[in-house]
């Protein structure tokens, strides 16, 4: 098991348990969390799973691939230093991550 803390753009936080190996996007969508759409199901085609990762968590993640980096230029809310596409972040056993969701994904 792992845990993701989702904070929405207004500051409300919700903690959701994640299965090891699931992405943050999958964890959010399956539980009906508003704020992440994941229209393409995680195939890195839609950029509707944009999140801002808490700075202390960011450095613990694998660096992103070029495709994700390029896709991030097309998100609905402009990317920032700590932007990631959450379908590309897979949870490890025991991991706890904190992300903020943008006001809109489309």
């Amino acid at each position, binding site marked *: 098991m792992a845990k993701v803390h989702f904070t929405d753009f207004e500051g409300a936080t919700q903690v959701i348990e994640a*299965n090891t190996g699931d992405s943050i996007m999958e964890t959010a969508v399956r*539980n*009906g969390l508003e704020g992440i759409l994941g229209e*393409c*199901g995680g*195939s890195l*085609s839609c950029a509707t799973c944009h999140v801002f990762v808490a700075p202390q968590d960011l450095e613990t993640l694998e660096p992103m691939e070029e495709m994700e980096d*390029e896709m991030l*230029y*097309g998100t609905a809310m402009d990317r920032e230093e700590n932007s990631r596409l959450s379908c590309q972040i897979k949870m490890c056993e025991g991991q706890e991550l904190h992300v903020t969701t943008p006001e809109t994904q489309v």
Partner: protein
Amino acid sequence: MSAQILSPSLAGAEASATGTATGLLIIGASQSGVQLAISLRALGYTEHITLLGDEDHRPYQRPALSKEFLQDKVGSESLIFRSNEYWIEHNITLVKGERIESLDAQPDGSGTAMGRSGNSYRYTRLALTVGARPRLFEAPGNDLHGVVYLRNADDALKLKALAPGATDVVVIGGGFIGLEAASSLQAMGKKVTVIEYGPRLVGRAVGEETSEYFLAQHTARGLDIRIGGRIEKIIDDGQGAVRSVRLESGEEIPAQVVLIGIGVIPNTQLGEKLGLKIDNGIVVDKHAIASDGHTIVVGDVANMPNPVPGAPADERIRLESVNNAVEHAKVAAYSLMGQREAYAGIPWFWSNQANMKLQIAGLSMGFDATVKRELPEKGKFTVLYYRGGQIIAADCVNAPLDFMAVKQALAAGKNIDPYAASNPATLLKTLIA
């Protein structure tokens, strides 16, 4: 009214005798039906919703069936749309494995749906999100063991079960599904031949330059592609299974699995029974309402006014994509709330084949000029489509920046200068004007 004065057990008995009553019955529990239910709850719809489908699975996403799921890169659990708790918490009853065979509709849009199981379902409003089914391949041998289609999870499971026993696969149809599955099967170590009847690959959805690009790339990667191929029959191994595919030329291509992907047919059967207007799908207005003025129809089965802003008012289209199912369902949800939102947006689509990630923005039909942008060393390839000097669509392979820029330009009703765009090193984003 009477239900309130009955004891719970009697109320239950009444429900089963006359059919379970629901506020909205959604027939078809896939991309469109799921999105409709979710969007309705997001808008504050309070009636009970029944989301009913004939498949024996929890509602799941189809795109990976020909891609990651086929290759065992993702498990079945990651295809599921929502957890069971979600449906329960949102007062949405899921009915799986039930096929609706007939409908008894009232003039006010309410009615009763009769299922194959013998159960019936009373509803106040009805939504048809019944999608499409694979077009059958008419040739001798099409019923042999080893012949498969790829529309739903059962098809994919069947193909996955057959794959280990096959060294050679013939894919009939060089459209998106055929090429995606062919790429996946090739990655799984199969020798794959693709037979396309038409003059080029994916002829329905992309222009000639993109077709040529895919042909060259796939051929270079070892797919054997036969453009204009004519199949005479699928040949039996003597025990009811596939041995090979014979072309009209007399050539025989060995195969233990034959995958057919020659397009789909919209499921208009229930619409016909309701007397709805049918024309390449069930005809709806821009609010996703059918010709009876009540029935909501969404997704692959709907023939709707072209949603692209500025498209000719009488132009109609039926789209088969996740993006369309999702956006169309949102519009339908407003209609059910008694509000009227017109379906307007820039359609987009994706397809992953081997190392090629194709993203399409807009609709290229009616284009009169194209601009090609290519960076071969990075595997990037883009075709921009113009009509009367205005950009209308783009096919982008491994080029998300191009895709995003075109999508953005189209959504804002802006243009991208074709001359400047022909330099592949120039960022399209800087040319939006």
